[in-house]
C-alpha cells in the first residue's frame, strides 16, 4: 500500500521545519543579531500565513477576510521587527557606554517593581530602594 501525503500534511511539516529553524537561529548563537531577529520574524510571518491560508482555509474565503487576517499579520510582524531591532540597538549602545538610563517606568514605579521575591534578578533593578528614591527626589 502506498501512503499518500495529504496537502495539509505538507503544510504541517513546513510549519515544524520553520519552528525548528527559528529555534536553531536563536539558540545557536548567544545574543540575537540583526539577521537572526529578521530571520525569526520572517519565519513567524511565513508560519502565520500558512496557518491563515491553509488551516483557516482563507485561501478559499472571500478576499476581504483573507486581507484582514493577512494584513493584521503583516502589520504585527513588521511592528515587532522594527521595535525589536530598536531595542537591540539600544541595548548595544548601552553596552558600549551609551546612556540607557531613561526608563519607560517612572523611577518610583520601577522601584516598586523591584520585587525582592524575584531572586533571579529578572525584572529587578540593582539599586537599593533608598538610593532610587533619593535620585527620584532630586
Amino acid at each position: 500500500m502506498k501512503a499518500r501525503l495529504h496537502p495539509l500534511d505538507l503544510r504541517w511539516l513546513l510549519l515544524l521545519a520553520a519552528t525548528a529553524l527559528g529555534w536553531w537561529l536563536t539558540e545557536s548563537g548567544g545574543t540575537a543579531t540583526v539577521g537572526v531577529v529578521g530571520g525569526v520574524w520572517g519565519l513567524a510571518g511565513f508560519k502565520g500565513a500558512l496557518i491563515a491560508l491553509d488551516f483557516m482555509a482563507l485561501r478559499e474565503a472571500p478576499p476581504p477576510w483573507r486581507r484582514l487576517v493577512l494584513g493584521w499579520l503583516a502589520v504585527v510582524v513588521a511592528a515587532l521587527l522594527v521595535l525589536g531591532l530598536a531595542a537591540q540597538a539600544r541595548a548595544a549602545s548601552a553596552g558600549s557606554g551609551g546612556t540607557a538610563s531613561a526608563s519607560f517606568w517612572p523611577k518610583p514605579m520601577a522601584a516598586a517593581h523591584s520585587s525582592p521575591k524575584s531572586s533571579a534578578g529578572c525584572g529587578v533593578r540593582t539599586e537599593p530602594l533608598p538610593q532610587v528614591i533619593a535620585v527620584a527626589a532630586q
Partner: protein
Amino acid sequence: MTTATAPPRLQGDVAMWIIVVAEMLSFGALFFAFALARLNDPDLFAAGQQQLDASLGAVNTALLLSGSWCVARGVAALQSGSLGAGARWTGAAAACGLGFIGVKLSEYAARLAQGQDLEAGPFFTFYWLLTGFHFLHVVAATAVLAAIAWRVPRRRWGPGDVHAPETAAALWHMVDLLWVVLFPLVYLLR
C-alpha cells in the same frame, strides 16, 4: 469545456470570525505594548526572558501546530463524509491541547516557585498577561474540540453539515496563529 470553480466561502460561523478578529486586535495591542516596554528597558526584559525555558515554549509550539493540523484534517475528513476519521483527528487535536495545558501548567508552577508572579516586575507582568490570556483561550478551544470529537458520531456531522466543526476549527487556528507571534516575542528573541 469549462471547469466550475467553487465560490469563495468562509469556513465557520461569521460570528466566530468577528470574535477571532477582535481577539487578534486585542492581542496585537498587547504585543505592541510588550515590544514598546522592552524598547524602553531592554536589559530588564532580557534578564526576565533568560529565566524562561524556551524549550518548553518550543514543545508547546509543536503541540499547537500539530493540533491545527489535526483539526484541519478532521474538518477535511468530515467534509468528505468520513465520520470516524473526523472524530479521530478532532480528538487528536484536543489531545494536543491537553498537552499544551500540561506543559504550560508545569511552566507556571516553576515561575511561581521562584517568586516570579504577576508583580515581579514589568517583564513578568507582561509575561503573565500575555501567556495567561492565551492559555485561557487554549483551555476554551480544547474544551470545544473535545466536545466536537465526542459529538461527531452522535451528531453525524457530514458533507452537508460541517458548520459547527468548522467554527470550532476557526477558534483553534486563531489560538495557534496568536502563539506563532507570541512565542518568538516573549521566549526566543532576547
